Each structure stands twice: as structure tokens, then as C-alpha cells.
């Protein structure tokens, strides 16, 4: 077990979410844009339409500067933010899939090197050779998607891996196939918005603009409806039962997230229809920019929902967010850790669950109960909840003080009883630790409520 980074101002989980959604947006655009560019360039080559190169060049420059600086890098950014916020979670993925990621690294090299070669060889090699580079870029970019989908889907549905421990079983897991095809389709919808933005940067009477806009409308509509269809009729039915249960719980997926997703889909549909019927409107920059902003919201909703339905686990059925393994996995020699921690206590067993007191005095003896409670709450709850004023920006993330205050559970005994009950919720696991340690946690949480709601400390009412 490692030290805990709660976050600074922003909660660590919120940092992960923001970086992840930015990455998804940019990377999805990048992957599909390589196909779109290849197709447009192929039209230019086969149909003798050299003016289309103006569009392809404009698109390539933006991809070079934006997609590869922001898209690719924020992918690595997810990695870093998850490493800081949930090291054992990422460790599980790395130890399983290091060579899959290393394989993806080959595609990254082609992507980053390839887009530079692609951009700098415009007009310096024959159109045929250039179009081949475009195809290489598209294939390699799709390769990155193909690999990361296996790892992403694994977290939600590790499938037979839990029995066999084989990485291939984890990679080609039950939600892998629908997620692969649904993402591949949906990224064309995002790319179509990007294509409209690029086309709108060309002069109004430019023939490439007139040709690309309706093409983007068609590609966007097909990608959007195919993607949404695949999500609804293949991905959702393929979800594990646990995830399906959580999908219906408003405590886990607030209705506002469905609204965001619907809004994003509706906005994109309207813009694509405009691209087909009223191209002049579709290329007024605020129209695709507005749709892109709503698409970002929709993505936020979708990605958050995907992450939330495996609650409270990082890898469903293997490791909860508190990073304490709860199952035996004989195939890989893994033993559950919670039982031992319940018997022997957490403070003495985890090197970084530190609380003031004489060292070597046993797991629970000789410590300041409040500080001990803080260390334990930070260790077990801070992955998902704000547990101190440090991450309380704009109220924090699922702030425990606010949660208890709302429910009228403000005193240590009541909180202690609540801690015992949470193992019964489908989105929580039981608290881990010796009985005395649970007392300490309750003491700290009661103090936390008083810190956030000082009137309680003065004997005031809720």
C-alpha cells in the first residue's frame, strides 16, 4: 500500500476525470480524422480534385499542433493522474497489460512521427506516396484505439481473467467487442464536427469547403447513429449484472448525466443535418463549436457513467477503490487482504497508514484517536470522497461531511453505525479495519462534519 494523494484544491478523482475526458475528445477526433483525411485525399487523387488538398493540409496542421500535443499527451496524462490518485489500481493494469501498452507504444511512434512526415511531405512526394502515408497514419491511429479498448473494458468486465489470470482473457473481455465498435463509430461523429471547423476556416467560395461540409454531415450522422445504436443494443446488454443494477440507481448515476448525453447527441444530429441541408449555417464557427462543447459534456457524462457502474471497484470483482484486494485469485497466487486487516488492524499493517503515537506500540495502541481516524479515512475513503478541507473546492467531491450532514448523521456513534451498514449498499464495500479503528474513523468523521458545519459544534441545529 502506498501513500495517499488526496488532491490539492481539486479532488484527485476530478483531476483524473477532467484529463480523461479531454483525452477522449482529442484522441477520438484524431483517430477518425486520419481516416477522413485519407478519404478526402484519395478523392483528390482519384477524381482529380487538387483543391481538396487545401482542406487536408489545414486539417493536418491542426492535428499536428493540437491533436498530437493535447490528444496523445493527455493520454499519458491520464496515466500520471491515475498513478497519483490510485497507484494500486494502475499497478494492476500495468502488471497485467504492460506488453499490450508496449505494443501500443509502437503505434504512438508511428502516429507522432508519421503526422510530422505526413505534414512536411505535402508536395514533396508524389500524391500516391502521400496518400499511402495517410493510410498508414489511419491504420496506426486505429491500432491505438484497438489496444486501449481492451484495457479500458477490462476494468468493467474482467471476465474469465478472474479465474484463469491470463492477460488475453482479461483483454478480450465481455465488453471489449461492443466497446471497440461503438467507439470506432462514435469517433466519426466527433471528427465530423472537427471537419466542419476546419472547413469553416477555408474561404466561403472554396470548392473544398463546399465538398467537405456535406461529406462531414453524412459521416457524422452515420457514425453517431451507428455508435449510439451499438451502445444501446450491444454494449449495455453486455454489461455485467452489477453494472446494470447501478445504471438504474440515481445515487450512482444522477439523471443529469443522461440529460447531458441526450443533449450532446441531439446537438450533433442538428449540426450534421445542417451540414447536409444548410451548409452555410453548419460552418458558422459557433455552431460546430457549440456542438463540440455539448459533445464534451455528453462525453463527460458517458465516461463518468462508464467509470461509475463498476463502483466501488477499480477492477470489478478484484480491487475496490480503496486499493485493498477483496478476493482470492489462486491462478495468480493473489490472496485477499481485507480479512487479515480486519483481524490485525490497518494502522500496523500498512506502512503509510501513519498516525501519531509511539512507534511499535501495536496497531491501535498509543495513538491519537482523531489523527488515527483521519489516517484511516484518508486511506479508505479519499479515492472517491472529499474527506478534508484540502479538496473542498466548490464543495468537494461526494464530500463525506456534506453527505452525513444531509442525512442527519452527525455524531460519532451514529456515524459508526452507518460505517457498519455501508457494506450492504451495492456501490460500497464494508469498511476495513479492527473494531477500534472503526471507532477512530467515526470520531474523525464527526469532527469533519463539525469542521464543515461549525454551527453544529456550537450546539446549533441542522
Amino acid at each position, binding site marked *: 500500500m502506498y*501513500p495517499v*494523494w*488526496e*488532491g*490539492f484544491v481539486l479532488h484527485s478523482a476530478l483531476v483524473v476525470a477532467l484529463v480523461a475526458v479531454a483525452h477522449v475528445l482529442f484522441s477520438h477526433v484524431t483517430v477518425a480524422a486520419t481516416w477522413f483525411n485519407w478519404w478526402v485525399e484519395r478523392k483528390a487523387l482519384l477524381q482529380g480534385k487538387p483543391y481538396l488538398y487545401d482542406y487536408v493540409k489545414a486539417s493536418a496542421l491542426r492535428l499536428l499542433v493540437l491533436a498530437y*500535443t493535447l490528444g*496523445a*499527451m493527455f493520454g*499519458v*496524462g491520464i*496515466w*500520471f493522474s491515475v*498513478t*497519483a490518485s490510485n*497507484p*494500486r489500481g494502475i499497478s*494492476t493494469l*500495468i*502488471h*497485467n*497489460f*504492460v506488453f*499490450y*501498452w*508496449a*505494443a*501500443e*507504444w*509502437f*503505434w504512438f511512434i*508511428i502516429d*507522432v*512521427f508519421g503526422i*510530422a*512526415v505526413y505534414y*512536411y*511531405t505535402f508536395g*514533396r*512526394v508524389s500524391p500516391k*506516396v502521400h496518400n*499511402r*502515408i495517410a*493510410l*498508414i497514419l489511419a*491504420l*496506426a491511429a*486505429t491500432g491505438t484505439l*484497438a489496444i486501449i479498448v481492451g484495457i479500458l473494458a477490462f476494468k468493467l468486465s474482467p471476465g474469465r481473467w478472474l479465474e484463469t489470470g491470463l492477460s*488475453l482473457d482479461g*483483454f*478480450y473481455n465481455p465488453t*471489449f467487442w461492443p466497446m471497440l465498435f461503438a467507439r470506432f463509430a462514435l469517433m466519426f461523429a466527433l471528427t465530423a464536427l472537427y471537419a466542419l471547423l476546419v472547413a469553416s476556416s477555408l474561404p466561403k467560395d472554396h470548392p473544398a469547403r463546399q465538398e467537405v461540409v456535406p461529406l462531414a454531415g453524412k459521416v457524422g450522422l452515420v457514425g453517431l447513429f451507428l455508435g449510439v445504436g451499438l451502445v444501446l443494443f450491444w454494449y449495455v446488454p453486455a454489461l455485467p449484472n452489477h453494472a446494470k443494477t447501478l445504471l438504474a440507481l440515481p445515487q450512482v448515476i444522477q439523471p443529469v448525466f443522461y440529460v447531458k448525453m441526450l443533449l450532446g447527441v441531439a446537438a450533433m444530429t442538428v449540426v450534421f443535418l445542417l451540414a447536409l441541408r444548410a451548409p452555410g449555417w453548419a460552418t458558422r464557427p459557433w455552431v460546430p463549436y457549440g456542438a463540440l462543447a455539448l459533445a464534451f459534456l455528453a462525453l463527460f457524462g458517458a465516461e463518468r457513467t462508464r467509470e461509475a457502474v463498476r463502483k466501488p471497484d477499480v477492477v470489478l470483482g478484484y480491487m475496490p477503490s480503496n486499493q485493498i484486494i477483496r478476493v482470492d485469485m489462486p491462478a*495468480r497466487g*493473489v490472496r485477499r487482504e481485507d480479512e487479515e486487516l480486519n483481524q490485525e488492524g490497518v494502522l500496523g499493517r500498512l*506502512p*503509510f497508514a*501513519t498516525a*501519531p503515537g509511539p512507534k511499535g506500540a501495536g496497531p491501535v495502541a498509543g495513538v491519537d484517536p482523531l489523527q488515527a481516524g*483521519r*489516517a484511516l479515512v484518508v486511506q479508505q475513503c479519499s479515492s472517491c470522497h472529499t474527506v478534508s478541507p484540502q479538496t473542498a473546492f466548490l464543495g468537494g467531491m461526494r464530500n463525506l461531511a456534506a453527505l452525513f450532514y444531509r442525512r442527519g448523521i452527525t455524531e460519532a456513534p451514529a456515524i459508526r453505525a452507518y460505517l457498519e451498514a455501508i457494506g450492504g449498499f451495492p456501490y460500497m464495500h464494508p469498511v476495513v479495519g479492527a473494531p477500534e479503528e472503526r471507532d477512530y474513523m467515526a470520531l474523525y468523521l464527526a469532527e469533519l462534519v463539525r469542521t464543515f458545519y461549525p454551527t453544529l459544534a456550537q450546539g446549533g441545529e441542522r
Partner: protein
Amino acid sequence: MSPETLLAMRDPLGAPVHPAALQLLLVVTYVLHIFFVTAAVGSLTLGLYALTRREENWKRLGHVAIRLAVQATGLGITMGIAPLLFVQVIYDPFWYTATTLMGLWTTLFIPVVALGYLFLYVLYLRGNVVGVGYVALGLLVLAGFIMHSLANAGLYPSRWVDWYAPGGVPDTAGVRFVGYDLGRFAALLFGQAGLSLGVSLLLFAWYFRRREDVPPGFLGFVEGVARGALRLGGILFALFGLLWAWGQGRELGMAVPVVLMALVLGALFYLHGLRVRSEGALSTLGLYLMALLGVGILREYLRAQAAFGQGYAVWQYPFTWDWGSLLFFLATGVAAVPVIVYLARVLYVSGSRPEGADPGPGVERLGDLGVRLLLGWFAFYLTLGLFVVARAALG
């Protein structure tokens, strides 16, 4: 931190191959990563200096250096993914402890790099916004310092608990830098930046020697700057290396190897910088890559020894052969490497004439093969998936 605790922090899943293979991959990919990173820092510094000069040759070199910095940054980041992967598998207690101790900086690392990279592009595309260039350089150096601190803090398990919980109270904000060593940082970033810049400029002068539109006088000037950069890099590497030996080297009981490395490499490249010509660019590159390999091995030796001193023998990391993942990796390598070679060949040929040039038939065939290999990879990927599904269905 007791040895038992340190060993218990390893991931229970173990490694997918023998740790020696991962150590080898770690060192080799580090060489590629650090070459591009230091080339980026060196060339951006040179580019910013060149922008202050009025002479034609300096102006021209400034544009070259900034363009080089842009490409080197992109490749440096990409290459960095691989060593980062491998270090997490066999040195997980060290890496994850350091990354959470400095959590804020860990999460800021990529935004800092991305912003630096964006500013660098602004400098490249606009050409004359020097202030933006300095911000970019500052951000890239900060990113280097973050990464250095993360790598270095892992070497001191005995201080981890004190760093995390001074006085027993955990500090969960992750805002402090801990465990850095300025000598090591300066030697591996600034010393090597001079050397990487020198090698890159030599390669530039060598590549453009046949282009009739590039004046020989300019190439001679670049060659001169390259020699200067090699000499300066050699001196800096030696001086900062001695500082590194004096600090971390002494602490970890490894001052002698660090001193030897600093003096040998410093002298080697200083002397090389006195006489090398652009005709010898490729052999200089080879020599430099070998030198970086030496530095990479020294770093790994240092890390392994520091860990061993704490009771953590990295070569005893538990592992089970995971053939599925190895097959996946090798198949991807077989498909990707020819494609990378093809792209490099196209770039090489297209730059050989002012108006550009098409690659020859041999390269064309390689391109066709590359596309087929990529398509073949997707066939492999999907077939492997269907095989896994079918195997599961059959029980």
C-alpha cells in the same frame, strides 16, 4: 522501511517475464527517450540564443534549432512512455511511492509538458515571439525536474515515511518536491543537452551537404557550432557529474562509478568536439548512443544497488511467463518496425532535394509491405480475440 515491508509492496500479480528482460527494455528505451528530450532542451536553448543574434547564419540556425526542438520534444515524450511502463512493473514500490508523495507534481507533469510543447509550436510557427520560447524552455525544464524528482525520490525508502508523515501526521497534498539531487539533474539534463545538440547539428550538416540550395558556408558554421556544443556538453557533463558523485554518489556508496562515468564521457566528447567533421556524424551518433547506453546502465545499476541495499533484489521479482502478452507485443513490433523504417526513408529521401523527391522502388515496396503488415496486424488482433472467445465458450 523494513525489507519485508518493501517486498510486500510489490504488486501481487508479479511480472509477465523475467525481470532481466524488463530491465533491458527499460535501459534501451531510456536511451531513445533521453536522447530526444535533451536534444529538445539543447536545441531550444540554442534557438533562443540565435534569435538574439543578427548575423544571417545565426538567424538561419535559429530556425533550424527551433524546428528541431519541436520534433525532438514530440519524439521525446513518445519515447518516454516505454521506460515509464517497464519501471512500473519491476520497481513498483519505488515508483508509486514517489508519484504519490509528489502527487500534485505527478499530475501536473503532462499539463506542464503539453503547455511547453504548445508554446514551442507558437514560437516555431510565429518565429519571433522570443518570450514564448523562454516560457516553453522553462516549462520543459520544470517537467524534467519533476521527472527527475520522481525517479530520484524512489531511491530513498528509509526517508519515505518521514517525507509523507513528518511528525506522524500524513501530508496528503503532494506539493513538496522531495529527494531531488541537483548534480544528477544538471548532469543528465544540461550536460547531455549540450552533447545531444552537438550530435544533432552534426547530423544536420551531414544530411544537407548534398543540397545545392544550402550554402556550404552555413553548413561549415553549423559544424562549428556542433563542435562547440560537444565541447561545452563534455565540460558540463563532467562538472555536474562530479557534483552528482559528491552528493547522491557518496550517499549511496557509488561515488566511484559516477566519477568515472563523468570524467570519461566528459573528456571523450570534449576531445571529440575538437576535431570532428560532419562526415563523421553517423559514427559520432553511434558513439553517443553507446555513451547514453553507458549512462543508462549506470542509472539502472544505481537504482538496483540502492534497492538491494534496502533488501529489494530486483532480479528476484516474482514473475510468470505470460505468453499471450508477449505474442501480442512481438506481433505488433513485427508490423510496426518496417513501417517506422519506411516513414524514415520517405522523410530522408524527400528532403534530399529542394523540390522534394519520391522514394525509389525499393522503398516503395517497403511501403506496400508496411500497409499489408498493418492490415495483417488487424487480422491477427481480431483472430486472436475470436480464438480467446471460442476457447472461453468451449470451457
